[in-house]
Each structure stands twice: as C-alpha cells, then as structure tokens.
C-alpha cells in the first residue's frame, strides 16, 4: 500500500492504494468519478481515455503509483457539466452522437486532445487519431461530424485550451 495523491479536475484526492493499480480504477473506485469507463483493460478500446497534463492516455495502462501529485489529470467530468458544457460536448449534443453513450467519455477525451494538437482536422486526421477508440453502437460518422463542428466552434471559443 502506498499513499496516493492525485490531482483530478483541479481537486486533490488522497487515499491509500496499491501502486500497480491502473489509474482507471483509482479514478472510478477511489476518486469516485464514474464517467471514465472500463472496456478492455488492454488499451484496445479507448473507453478509459483521460488527459494527463493535457495528453490523452489510456488510464487502464497507467499505474497510479507512476503519477506525481503535480501532474494534472482531467476526466470527462472536468471538461464540463450539463450546465457548463465544453464546445466538444456541445457539438456531441448538436450531432446527437451517443447511442448508449458508454464509450463517449473516451471518445470526447480523445477528440479534445486531437483538437488541441490540430484545431482543424481533416477526415483522415480524425480517422487516424480516433482509430483507437471503439464504438460498438456505431456512432463513428456522427463523431466525425461533431469533431468538425467543434473545430468550427473552436476558433471562437478556443476549446483547445481546455
């Protein structure tokens, strides 16, 4: 057991846990934020995607002991709430992207990271960047449209900074 000190969505969480526990389970069961999802546990589906210092990572592959308290973790809850939506989330609503919605936290976290690197991605850019995020309901086409929509918005709202 080790003392874990995590900065998640600009809040500090302290708890004791084993250092080899993936960040995914620390976020879900110790921090108590359930928006980040378990899908495969082997970085094949992207449902667990979060940002570590602004970079999209698969939280199922990141041992919680490897993260320092200075590093900033952002989960989907840190992007916005239904009352204060980020531009990407708004675009997701405009395009009515989710069906079941289970993978969408991961999709959105990947999309935000993509737009940060590449504010106006082409279809090919989106396909390449998003290829690690699976959606079994088949919302890929709407995700593409939502990313383009958010890219259009991002010039105004500067969502890339989030």
């Amino acid at each position: 057991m080790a003392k874990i000190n995590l900065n998640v969505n600009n809040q500090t969480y302290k708890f004791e846990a084993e250092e080899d526990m993936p960040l995914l389970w620390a976020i879900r069961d110790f921090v108590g934020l359930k928006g980040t999802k378990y899908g495969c546990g082997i970085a094949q589906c992207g449902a667990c995607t979060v940002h570590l210092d602004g970079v999209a990572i698969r939280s199922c592959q990141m041992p919680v002991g490897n993260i320092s308290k200075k590093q900033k973790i952002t989960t989907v809850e840190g992007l916005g709430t239904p009352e204060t939506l980020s531009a990407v989330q708004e675009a997701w609503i405009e395009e009515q992207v989710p069906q079941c919605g289970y993978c969408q936290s991961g999709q959105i976290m990947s999309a935000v990271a993509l737009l940060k690197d590449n504010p106006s991605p082409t279809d090919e850019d989106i396909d390449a960047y998003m290829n690690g995020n699976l959606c079994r309901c088949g919302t890929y086409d709407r995700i593409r449209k939502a990313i383009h929509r958010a890219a259009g918005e991002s010039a105004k709202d500067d969502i890339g900074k989030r």
Partner: protein
Amino acid sequence: MMKNVNTRRDFIKLSSLGGLGLVLGVNQLGHAAGVKKLTVAAAELEINPFVIIGTDGIVTLVNSRPDMGQGSTQAVPSLIAEELEIDLKDINLIQSDGRRKYGSQQSGGSSTVRGLWTNLRKAGASAKEMLIEAAANQWGVSTDQCYAENGKVILKGQNKSLGYGELAEAASKLPVPENPKLKDPADFRYLMKFNKRLDVPDRVTGKAVFGIDVEVPGMLYASVIHPPSVQGKLISFDDSAARKVIGVKEVLKTKSYYPGGDTEALAVVADNYWSAQKAAKLLDIKWDDGDLKKTLNTDKYVSDMYEAAKGEGINSEEDGDFNAFYAASENKLEGIYETPFLSHSAIEPVNATAHVKEDGTVDVWAPIQGPDGALSETAGLLGISPDKVKIHPQLLGGSFGRKAFMNFMKEAVDLSRQMKAPVKVIWSREEDMSQGPYRPAMLSKMQGVIGRGNSLAALSHHAVGESIMGQHWGGLMPYQADGWIGGELSKDNHKYNFPVHKLTYSRVKTQIPILWWRSVYASNFGWGQECFIDEMAHKAGKDPIAARKELLKNSPRDLKVIAKLEEVLEKQGALPDGHVRGIAMFRSFETMSAAAVQLTKTDEGLKVVKVTSIVDCGMHVNPDHVKAQTEGNIVMGLSAAVKGGITFSNGKCDQQNFHNYQFMRFAEMPEVDIHIVENMEHPGGVGEPGLPPIAPALGNAIFNLTGKRLRKLPIDLASV
C-alpha cells in the same frame, strides 16, 4: 416517486373493457393529500401504471423498456406525453421494476415502439380526458369547451386554466374513458418529428449512470473466473497468492449458469474491483475440461452443418413440389452460404450489483434488457416470493441481446447471499468474450430455378445450424423446424413471389453456447438469401433491382422501398471509375430495409466507400432515432461481414479481447446515407432491421467488382 408506485393498492378501480382496461389509483402516502396516480392497463389485461401525477403537479412517467442505446428513455415518454399534452422537459422518468402491472418489459425484438405505440398513447390520452373532465366539472362547462396543453387544462376563449396537479385528485375519482380519442398524426408535437434526446447531455458529461457505475453503501466487488472450456468442472484451486492481494476479502465458489447446464465458477471478492481482478488472475485453478475438450470445436460444427446440408431438412413451408421441379429443370443453380459465431461485445462488460438482505428482501441493480425476467429469475434462484425482490434497471452500455441472458446477475445475487453484503460483479473483458453466449454460426443451402422467359421461378432455402430455442429451453422437437427461423424466411415475410418455394430446417447441435444477437437469425440467413437472389438475377440476365421488382410485384409497399432506393442512388450521381454497388433487402421485425454498398479497390484491398440504407418502418417516434439505429446497424452489419468471428478449439474460445476479436474502427467507417420511407403504416422495428441487408449488399458488390461470388463470412477485404 418509485416508492410510491408500490403502495398504490389503496383504491383501485378497474373498468372491464375486454382487452383494454384502465386502472386508476389514489394512495395515501402518510401525508394527508397523498399522491394522485392515474394508471392505465394496456393490452393483455395486464395493469400498467405509466402515468403518475402528484398534487404538486409533478408528472412522473414510467419507462418499461430498459435503454441500451436504442433510445427508449426518449421514445417511451414521447408516446405518453404526446397524448397527455405535457412537455417532455417537465416530466420525471422512472424505470419499471419488473412487476406484472407494467406488462412485458423486455427491450428486445425491436419491439418497444411497435409493441407499445397504441397502448402508451392510450395511457396518455385516457389520463388527459379525465383531467379535462375534472376541469370541466369544476368550471361547470362541457368538456368540449376545454383542451389540454403543456400540463394544464384550459377553458377556451377565457383566461382560465387549471394545472394537472390541481386536477389530479378530482380526475382520479372519475370513470375511466373506454376509448380515449387519440390525436390526429397531423397534430403530433413529438411523434415522427426530430427532437433532441434529453438524456444526451448526461451521456456526454460522464453523468449517466450505467450498471457498472452503481454504488451501494458497503458494497464489495467480485471478479469471477469461469471454466475456460465449455462445461468444464472445477477440480481444485490454490488461492494463497490471490488472498495476499490487499483488499481481498474472500475467494469462493459460485455457479456458472449456462444453457448446457450449470457449472462451478470461482469468485474473488474484494473491497475494490482492481484487487478482485488482480487476485483472480493469481488463482491457480485445476479444471477438468471433460470430454468436450476432444470434440468441441467450430470446424467440427461447421463440417457437421455441411453434412446436414446434403440431406433434406424438416419442412417448414412449401409451395409446389420444389424437388421435382428442380430435378426436371435445366437452368438451375445452388450455393451454400456460411456465417460465423459472433460475440456481442458491448463495450460495457456484463455486470450486476445485488444485495440479499438479512430481512429476506433483495435489491438488484443491473444493466439488463428485461426487469420482468430479472425479477422472476432472482426470486427463482433464491426460492423466495417475487414480492421480496426489487429490480432497479440501469442504463446498459450496449447489449445487442447479450444482457437479456442474465447469468451475470445471478452470480451477483448468489455472491451477495454468500457474503451477506451488497456485491457488484464485473466480468473482465476476457470472461465476457470467451464465455459467450454467441450469435450462432449457420448455413443457408440455397437452390433456385430460372424458368421460362428467364423468370426467377423457384427458390429453396435450407437453413442449417443450432437452434436458440432448442439449446436454451429444449423447446424444439426433432420433428420440428425452428419457428423463429421459419417465420423469418417464410414467403409471408420476404414476399418474393416464387411460384415454387420451399423452406426447410436442419438442426445441428453444438454445446457452444448461443443466444440472440442483433437481428437474431436474420443476421445469418439474410446473407444467403439475398446473395442468392443476386446470383439468380445474374444467371437470368437481369438487373438485381429489376429482378426483385418482378418478385415483389404483389407487394406494393416493398416496391416503394425499391423505388426509394433507386431514387436515392440516382440522386447520388454516377459512380466514380472503379466503383461498383451491390444491393440487398430484407424484412425483419416488421420493417423492410434495403441497402446499397459502394465498393472500390485500393492498394490495401477492397474498400467500402459508402452505404445507403432505406428503412420502411412505418410511423416512428423520431426520425433521428431511426437514422442513428440504422447507422449502428450498418457498422455492426459490416463488422459481422468483414471481421473475424468467434472460433472454438478443444472446447475453448480462441478469442479473449479486442486485439483478437475485432470490429470496425474509425478508419474503416464508410460514408452513410440513410432514408426513411414516409408513410402512415403501423410502426415496425427499428433497432435491428437495418442490419441483415448489409452483408449481402457487400457480397453482391464484391461480385460486381471482381466476378467472385463469396459465400462464406467473414470476408477479408485485404485479400479478396
């Protein structure tokens, strides 16, 4: 509010309407005014309280169909609210808990809207008429001077209105209208109109609570290891390493509930899920793989099916004497089409939380497709009265049929009983994938005759493979053809007017556990049937669309579907050089769906460029739901056609996770173009019918591009 629903026995008036009854209840909730409930009985004489109106004006509607992504949390209240005249933004929505008064609560068979279309509208309309009458009585006017709008009854021409909450008590004492008047579709505010789903904001902010997210105070977490081989038996285990993992509370046996019979499984229970999953991997378990290790593999099952295809199946339906006609004909053809086993692989693995309490009551929180089945299975497992069980259906993170088979829920119940604490079971992806049950692998042996004048004169479809009904419930006698398959492939369903037509079925048994999977057998047999119609058209020298038009000449509604497909394809303009299309159509769940797949060859192999789908589902709740479901069906249908299936070797599943069981990713996603045939027919299904034509449209496109007739799925697009 949910609590209130259970105590509504105080006053109940039942009108006997012979088929449709309406129940009105008022209950005392420990406070004087109480909550007024307007409740409605739908068909099948089951009492379904879908509308609850509080004296405070709060309107609560009940969704009796769990939402797995198909949109029932929007569709069901839309049906009620349309007639009740209430804004969807102003309602509370609760899930039904499995009690009989709600009727059938299974999300499945694409049945929600087509099954509830009339009764839920009547539920809303009855309540509205009673509220209007109560208001008219209060004002001393006739009901035709009043109308309902946005949760109020309004007196025409005067500035007077009464809220539903103010009227609820008086309304509850009125007689129930026998035949409430339903709105003219021209006046629809929600139905058949684009409306944004109100639950989408929660689904993009991490707020939506899926089964896997349920938290109960004092809850423990379990990871379960099942026999790796089908029907394998637990001999012994060493849990010393597992028990050393911090957080582990217990290692214990549970039952693995399967169609072929129950076996033992092993569970690690811990105070957090990671500890349970980590420790489960450290268990040293000795399994007896049994005799199936030597005999159970997919190759054997598939070769058994080809052997069975040589014989005659059990007759399900026949027009004319096909065999005699076929034997005497010169211009004939045949081909055997094959589909593989498939995993549902919802991204949310199966999971459930249960609390078997000391007082003998039980709570279950689970992502399940049917709370009614969950209720009876939980009560049955524990040998207790259903009154003691409370089912709390949760959002499903995908399901596609899998979470209608609730062995994972029974494990949670059993483990909670043993641990005397609430327990959440989450299967690892590996368990979810390698345990099944699966979409069965099946064969279609197709035979056809081209008659005089190059007409498509005779068709025989010999369906071969394991029966879901037979494997799960022993419900299929050796002399019977599977009725589900028969229904799907009957002439009544496809409407192809072959003068000579035969449909037969041969059951080939396997112990590989099988289950319904999005569109069930239509996903198997659509492949054979629609590729073969294409083969016949080519052999007769006909255009595949023209050939289908001739076959459907007595089915005007289906001809409109083809006409719509032609119109849409024409609008898309001439195909670029090197591009081809294939088409197919298939009716399932009372909806005809036609598809065109546009294909080209690239350096990396064949590429699906665009999929066009036409859906004739009749009336619907929301065209955007129809499109979303159809997009999903295109993706799942293509995945089923071009990605590897599930295979078994030596009694075990060969696939474990998404690295070796794949489905389509972003880069493979084609452009989609979806159109709904507009008409006022009774609603058909939407969640599944878009899927069956996708694979055959692709197969037919491949033939048009390469001249190769592929009959076996999956197809490796890189190597065609």
